């Protein structure tokens, strides 16, 4: 792949690239801090699953998939759709976990805000359909 094509893909898929970086940073943070959902108590047992290193490997895998897709822009096997679904699944699960933890501790954490906004951004990006807007605009113009 030429450098020009690489740069073009990076510019075209910049939202997915930086979202993947954010997801990667989040998983690295979880690996470094460890037992994030365990302390301070009270602890919900099932939330600690999200601290598990295997789960972190999955999150890193999703982030790396996002990075590779955004730079190479391949469309085989509906890669883009699967990437969006995987990211939505991961972030929705973490947002729910953060909200549950905040509810227990009776406070609002930066994690809940961060993942919530990230989730909203991915939902927006996934639902965005410029072609539909363009067709609607052209139809409206024809009707006049």
């Amino acid at each position: 792949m030429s450098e020009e094509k690489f740069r073009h893909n990076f510019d075209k898929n910049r939202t997915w690239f930086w979202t993947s970086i954010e997801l990667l940073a989040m998983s690295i943070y979880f690996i470094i801090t460890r037992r994030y959902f365990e302390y301070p108590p009270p602890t919900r047992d099932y939330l600690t699953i999200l601290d598990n290193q295997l789960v972190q490997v999955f999150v890193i895998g999703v982030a790396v998939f996002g990075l590779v897709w955004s730079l190479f822009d391949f469309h085989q096997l509906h890669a883009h759709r699967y990437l969006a679904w995987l990211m939505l699944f991961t972030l929705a699960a973490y947002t729910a976990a953060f909200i549950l933890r905040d509810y227990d501790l009776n406070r609002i954490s930066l994690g809940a805000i961060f993942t919530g906004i990230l989730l909203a951004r991915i939902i927006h990006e996934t639902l965005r359909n410029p072609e539909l807007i363009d067709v609607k605009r052209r139809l409206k113009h024809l009707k006049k």
Partner: protein
Amino acid sequence: MSDAVIIAIAGLAAPVIVAIINGSNERKLLRLKEELKEKEDKEKDEDDN
């Protein structure tokens, strides 16, 4: 156990809802494209006549 269910539901609900809306938008796009093509052809015929 209920915590795990909440997380699983939240995790699965987001992609499923988005996929349903995307599917609906795709169908709408196809329908509108056909409608647009018909109208453009009709307008072209009227102009030719």
